C-alpha cells in the first residue's frame, strides 16, 4: 500500500524515455512531423514491442494487462519527448471502448491487433463535447452518417465514431462513403482530420450497436487522464529546459538563473508541476480502482494539468527569452503540444463545467 509509481512503472518510463531520446530525438520528431501521415512505422513497432501499445490490453489478447496508471506513465514519457505516436486514440480510447462495449470476438480481434501494432485507430469524439450545427453522427439501418470536425490521432486505419446516444461504430478509413480530410493544427506531432460519412457501413458496431453511454464515459475519462499525463510530461520537460537554459545563459556577467526574477519563475513552475503530477497519478489509479471518483477526478486532472501546463510552457518560453521564440530552438514543440492537449477532449472550461454537472452544481 503506497502512493506512487511502482518499480516497474519507473522502469517503463525510464526505458521509454531512453529509447525515445536515443532513437527519436527532436531532429527525428521534426522529420516525422513533416510527413503527410506523421507516422513512423519503426517507432510504432518499437512501441508495440515494448508493450506500450498493448499496455491496457489483457494478456490473453497479447497485451501487458496493465492499468491506466501504466498507460499514463507511458503517456508522460511520450509527452516529455513530444513523440509523434498516436498512442491516445489507439492504445487508450479504442481499447477502453472495446473493453467496455465490444463483444468478446471484437475485443479479442481488435485488441490483439492493437497490441501487435498492426492497426491504428482514430477517435471522432469532438462532438461529444461541443456539437456544432450540422456535425455529429447518427445511425440508420446499421449505416453511419454525419460529420466530425476534429478527429484525434487521424491518419489511422480505422476511426471510432460514437453517436450522441452512445452507439459506437468502428469505420475503416477507406470505407465507401467516408471522406477524410486532414487538417493542420499548431501541433504537427499529432494528426487531426475532418470526416464526413454518408451511409457508411462500419466495419464493426461495438457490441452489436447497442447504446452504451457508460462505455463512452469511460472512454472519455481514460482519454482525459492520458491527455493530462501527456501535458504533464511535456510541461516537465519544458521546465527542465528552462532550468538548464537559466543555468547556462549569461547576462549581466552571471547566469540568468542566479537572478531572483528568473529563479522564482522556475520555482513557480515547479510548485505548480509537482502537486499536479500527484493528481495525474491519482486520477489514473482512480480510473481502475476507485470508480466512484473516476469521472470527477479525470475532469479535474484534464482541466488542471492543461491550465498549469499552459502556464509552464509560456513561462519556460519567457525564461528562454528571444531564443525560445525561434523555430530553430525546439522549445515551441512542447509549447504547441500542450496547446493542443489543452483543447483536446474538452477545454479546461468544458471539463470544469463537466465537473460541476457531476456534482449537481448545474
Amino acid at each position: 500500500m503506497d502512493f506512487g509509481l511502482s518499480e516497474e512503472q519507473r522502469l517503463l518510463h525510464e526505458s521509454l524515455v531512453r529509447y525515445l531520446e536515443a532513437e527519436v530525438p527532436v531532429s527525428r520528431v521534426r522529420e516525422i512531423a513533416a510527413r503527410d501521415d506523421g507516422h513512423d512505422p519503426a517507432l510504432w513497432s518499437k512501441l508495440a514491442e515494448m508493450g506500450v501499445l498493448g499496455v491496457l490490453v489483457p494478456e490473453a489478447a497479447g497485451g501487458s494487462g496493465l492499468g491506466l496508471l501504466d498507460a499514463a506513465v507511458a503517456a508522460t514519457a511520450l509527452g516529455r519527448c513530444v513523440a509523434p505516436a498516436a498512442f491516445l486514440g489507439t492504445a487508450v480510447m479504442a481499447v477502453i471502448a472495446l473493453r467496455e462495449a465490444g463483444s468478446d470476438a471484437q475485443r479479442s480481434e481488435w485488441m490483439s491487433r492493437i497490441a501487435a501494432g498492426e492497426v491504428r485507430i482514430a477517435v471522432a469524439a469532438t462532438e461529444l463535447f461541443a456539437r456544432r450545427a450540422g456535425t455529429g453522427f447518427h445511425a440508420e439501418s446499421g449505416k453511419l452518417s454525419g460529420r466530425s470536425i476534429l478527429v484525434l490521432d487521424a491518419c489511422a486505419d480505422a476511426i471510432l465514431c460514437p453517436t450522441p446516444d452512445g452507439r459506437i461504430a468502428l469505420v475503416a478509413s477507406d470505407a465507401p462513403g467516408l471522406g477524410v480530410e486532414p487538417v493542420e493544427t499548431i501541433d504537427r506531432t499529432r494528426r487531426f482530420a475532418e470526416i464526413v460519412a454518408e451511409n457508411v457501413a462500419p466495419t464493426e458496431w461495438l457490441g452489436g450497436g447497442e447504446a452504451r453511454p457508460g462505455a463512452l464515459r469511460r472512454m472519455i475519462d481514460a482519454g482525459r487522464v492520458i491527455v493530462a499525463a501527456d501535458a504533464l510530461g511535456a510541461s516537465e520537460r519544458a521546465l527542465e529546459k528552462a532550468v538548464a537554459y537559466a543555468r547556462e545563459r549569461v547576462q549581466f556577467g552571471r547566469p540568468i538563473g542566479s537572478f531572483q526574477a528568473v529563479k522564482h519563475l522556475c520555482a513557480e513552475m515547479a510548485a505548480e508541476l509537482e502537486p499536479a503530477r500527484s493528481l495525474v497519478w491519482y486520477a489514473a489509479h482512480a480510473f481502475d480502482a476507485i470508480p466512484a471518483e473516476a469521472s470527477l477526478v479525470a475532469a479535474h486532472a484534464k482541466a488542471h494539468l492543461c491550465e498549469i501546463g499552459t502556464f509552464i510552457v509560456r513561462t519556460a518560453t519567457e525564461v528562454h527569452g528571444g531564443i525560445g521564440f525561434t523555430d530553430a530552438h525546439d522549445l515551441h514543440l512542447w509549447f504547441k503540444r500542450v496547446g493542443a492537449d489543452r483543447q483536446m477532449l474538452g477545454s479546461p472550461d468544458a471539463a470544469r463545467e463537466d465537473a460541476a454537472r457531476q456534482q449537481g452544481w448545474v
Partner: protein
Amino acid sequence: MDLSYSPRHEAFRAEVRDFLERHRAEALTALLGVDAGTARERALAWQRLLIEHGYAARTIPKEYGGHGAAPDLLERVILDEEFNRAGVSRGIGGQGPDMLVPTLLEHGNEEQKRSYIAPTIRGEIIWCQGYSEPGAGSDLAAVQTRAVEDGDDFVVNGQKIWTTTAHLAHMMFGLIRTEPEASKHAGLSYLLIPMQTPGIEVRPLGTMTGHSEFNEVFFTDVRVPKRNVVGRRGEGWKIANTTLKHERNLLASSALLEGSLLRLIDLLERTETESGRAIDRPGIRDRLLRLQARVLAMRCHSLRMLTCGIKGEWPGTAGLVTKLAGCEISHQIAGLAIDALAETGILYGEGAKAQAARTWQAHYMFSLGLIIGGGTAQIQKNIIAERGLGLPREPRA
C-alpha cells in the same frame, strides 16, 4: 500505487471505530493545540489514552514514550478519516510534538531524548519556538540574541518575536548566537530554554486579526545550562533547518485544506439570495472548481510525500513546494468564501449573525500570515529553485 485496504487495515479501522465509540464520553471535539486552557487536565488524559492505543505519537519509539509502530500510510489515512468522521480531536499537536520531537529524534543526545520526548508528546511540556527576531526574518541566520559562557551556563540576552504559545510554554527551542567569532551561519546553537528562568519576559503581540496569536519574548541575563544545546555548538543553523522542514509541512496540511474546502462548498450551497445560491453564480462556481482541483492535487501530493517519508526516499523538488502551494490555496479559499457572502462578507463582530464571515475573514488574514510566516513565499521560491532545481545562488553583496 496501492490505496486498497488489506484485511489488516480493515481490522485497524474497525478497532479505531470501536475505540471512538467506547470513548465517546471522554473524547474531545476540538483539534487541540497545547493551550487547552481550563480543559487541560481532560486534554492530557485524552492524549494519554490516544498514545496508549497508538492513535497519537504512533511512530515514536517506545523507549521515548511513543507507540513504536512502523510508519504506515493507510493507518494514518484511516486515523484521519475516522477521527474526522467522529468529529473527535486527534489529540495534542503543535510545535512540541510536531517540530521539536522529530528534531530531537534526529539530532538530540540520549539524555535529551529521554528527558523531553515523552512529556512533550503527552502534552505535559509545552514548547515554543524561538527563531525569528525583529532583525532576523527572512534572513534568519542574522539572529542577534546571544549567549555568553559563564561556567556551566550560558547567559542569554536579546529578543525573539512571532513566538506562538510563549505565554503558555514551559520550554523554548531557540536559535542563539553562542560563537561570536564564527561566521554568521556557524555562530548559532540550538538551545533548549526553560521559560520559567528569571529574566524572561513574554509580551503578547497583537495582529491584524484583532487577536494575539503570537508573542515577543525578551531575554535579560537568562541563565541556561550548556547541556541544553542540541547537537554541537555552532550547528544550530543546520538543526533549525530540520525543524523548519517539519514546520513547512505542518503549515500547509492538505487535511486542513480539505476541511476548508468542504466548509466552503457547504457555504456556497447554503448562501442564498433571491437570484439563487452562491454556487449558482458563474464566477463564484468557476473559482470553486479551480480550487477543488488544486485541493485534490494537494491531497494526492500529501499522500505521495507521506509515502516518500515512510520509504525513506528523498522526494526532491516535490518535497519543497507544499508550503508555497498550500498556503496560497488556503488564502484563496477564504477569499472566495468572503466574496460569496458578498456585502455580508465583511462582518467581523461577535454575534451569531457574523459568525460565518468572522471565521472566514480571520482565516483570510491568518492564511496571509502563514504565507509570510515560516519562510515567506519569496524564501520558499529561493529554496525550491536552489535546493530543488539546482539554480545558482545569488552572488553575495
